């Protein structure tokens, strides 16, 4: 029998993972601001209230800290809550609970507790949302032992990874990017779970490895097309899970290509890319033919004016330029 496939947007893929888990499992529920009738600020939960009711699609007050804490508490009692934080900028308000509690309860209790909580959030630049609604904050969480950090760039990954995040026994901070919500992909009705900690080779190539996350994955793919015109073959690796990181996949690719570019939308300085660069020089130094290039946002609050925002945020041009630098032909 031919598999039925449907075109899912990234937004629908996220919704589908939550809905499928909630159909199957009464311990899964979601809470967040404006997620009921309104469907959330990005309409990700639209329609879920009708199916699951207000107890399991819980509209919540503007209390990021207590919501996250309540998610942790319910998770400690064996439920699998999903907390939606409207913008990742507001994770700052939940940070104490995530860093001091969600990440540490298991360790501090000597293994007595589990915190199977998923904190979903979204954000990102490209629409003049300014300094408090568009910054990329995943780099603040990858350095916290006990937390997992997931950042999908396609509908398929979003659905499969969110499912695995919900069913992971650790707290997962799950980043979605506002510019990706309308990306579409054909997916089978049946959900394919994708294990956490496994990278995806988004494009195979021989000359340069680009390790890219979130919106920089499609941007890197576009840059790779352009580089191909110049005779440069680019491999794009999407880690998908930033913590734990699939180090082997990155190293294997770099050992093949001998050149590496790291690209993310978050600030370049002190960013996630610095860790990848360090990893590559520690474990693949002998294979490298050029310094590792890093692509990221400038070190400033995200500006409002479109001209400034464009100047701050990396897109395909910056990735392309970095690729060219690694092959010594800029």
């Amino acid at each position, binding site marked *: 029998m031919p598999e039925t496939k449907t075109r899912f947007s990234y937004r629908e893929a996220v919704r589908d993972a939550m809905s499928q888990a909630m159909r199957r499992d*009464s311990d899964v*529920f979601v809470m967040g601001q404006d997620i009921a009738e309104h469907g959330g600020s990005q309409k990700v939960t639209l329609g879920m209230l009708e199916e699951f009711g207000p*107890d*399991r699609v*819980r509209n*919540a*007050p503007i*209390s990021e*800290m*207590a*919501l*996250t*804490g*309540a*998610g*942790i*508490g*319910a*998770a*400690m*009692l*064996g*439920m699998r*809550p999903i907390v939606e934080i409207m913008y990742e900028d507001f994770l700052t308000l939940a940070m*104490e*609970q995530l860093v*001091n*509690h969600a990440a540490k*309860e*298991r*360790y*501090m*209790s*000597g*293994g*007595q*507790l*589990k*915190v*199977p909580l998923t904190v979903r959030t979204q954000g990102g630049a490209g629409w003049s949302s300014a300094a408090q609604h568009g910054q990329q904050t995943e780099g603040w969480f990858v350095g916290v*032992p*006990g937390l*997992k950090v997931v950042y999908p760039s396609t509908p398929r990954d979003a659905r499969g990874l969110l499912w695995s995040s919900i069913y992971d*026994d*650790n707290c997962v901070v799950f980043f979605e990017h506002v510019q990706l919500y309308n990306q579409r992909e054909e997916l089978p009705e049946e959900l394919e779970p994708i294990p956490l900690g496994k990278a995806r080779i988004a494009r195979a190539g021989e000359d340069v490895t680009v390790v890219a996350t979130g919106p920089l994955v499609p941007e890197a793919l576009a840059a790779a097309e352009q580089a191909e015109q110049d005779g440069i073959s680019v491999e794009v690796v999407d880690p998908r899970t930033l913590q734990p990181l699939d180090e082997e996949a990155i190293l294997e690719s770099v050992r093949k290509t001998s050149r590496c570019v790291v690209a993310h939308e978050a600030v370049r300085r002190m960013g996630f890319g610095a860790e990848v660069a360090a990893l590559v020089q520690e474990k693949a130094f002998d294979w490298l033919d050029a310094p590792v290039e890093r692509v990221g946002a400038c070190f400033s609050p995200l500006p409002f004016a479109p001209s400034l925002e464009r100047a701050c945020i990396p897109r395909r041009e910056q990735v392309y330029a970095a690729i060219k630098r690694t092959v010594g032909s800029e």
Partner: protein
Amino acid sequence: MTELDFMTSPQSGELGRFLQQMLLIRYFEQQVEERYRDAEIPGFVHVAIGQEAVAVGACAALAPGDVITSTHRSHAHALAKGTPARAVMAELYGKVEGCSRGRGGSMHLYDVERGNLGSSAVVGGALGIATGAALSFSLRSEPRVALAFFGDGATASGLFHESMNLAQLWKLPVVFLCENNRWAESTPLAQHSPITDLTQRAQAFGMTALEVDGQDVEAVYRATAEALAHARSAAGPVFLLAETYRLAPHNVGDQQEYRDKEEYELTRATQDPIAKLRERLALSDERFDELEREAEAAVADAVDFARHGTDPDPQTLLEDVYA
């Protein structure tokens, strides 16, 4: 009441058990102070001398299946919730036999099997967790209650207000038990709270509030039972204010230069919950001595157990970072 009475009649027998637990906690805390000063216990420690009646009365009122969260001043809560003194002491010594396998220490005592979800050393930090535990009871229609211990100082924290708001909004079965010992470290209530009657905190959320003399273990027991019944009946959370006294420094080593010496000595002389219960039970000196020796022996045994405990193997360092 005769001595025999208190061991046999059910209600006063309960009080006798409370006294034994309070004595155990008192001797435990005194030993902690000494062992800490002798540098046997690493880190830093906060003892609950003066607040024993709150922990014992409240935990006695809990039903099996109810859970607690605790604070940096956690030993009394853990002991009252039934964790053996050996396991608590061993944790303070950082031993594998400790109730958190040596990963937590004084400020992070856990005993999930006995319903202790753990203590947060971030002031107020566990209030969301208690609220979430209650949310799980509500969603699963389980007749269980979460009780959160916290101090007066925590009522100034953002999470306290957010959690109270959320719990009342969603009518969650949680009891917020505030131990008002009138101090947040060196800061007196008047310098951290614009109100002296902390039940007004609850009024802002339309939450039921109860107030109790925290030096009277029987009163604490009854008030907690009432609060639990209210929460368990799905009538919503309760803010339970226990007025109590910290009859010790904030942490061992604190010189309390901020505290009036005379007032402190007077409070110690007049507000000891153990002395009050002893008087109430009209115990003879012999009987009381006997109970003291029992508590002392149990604590000595716990210290001995902890001293002979196993240091965690560095090979296990990364265990339980992730599940």
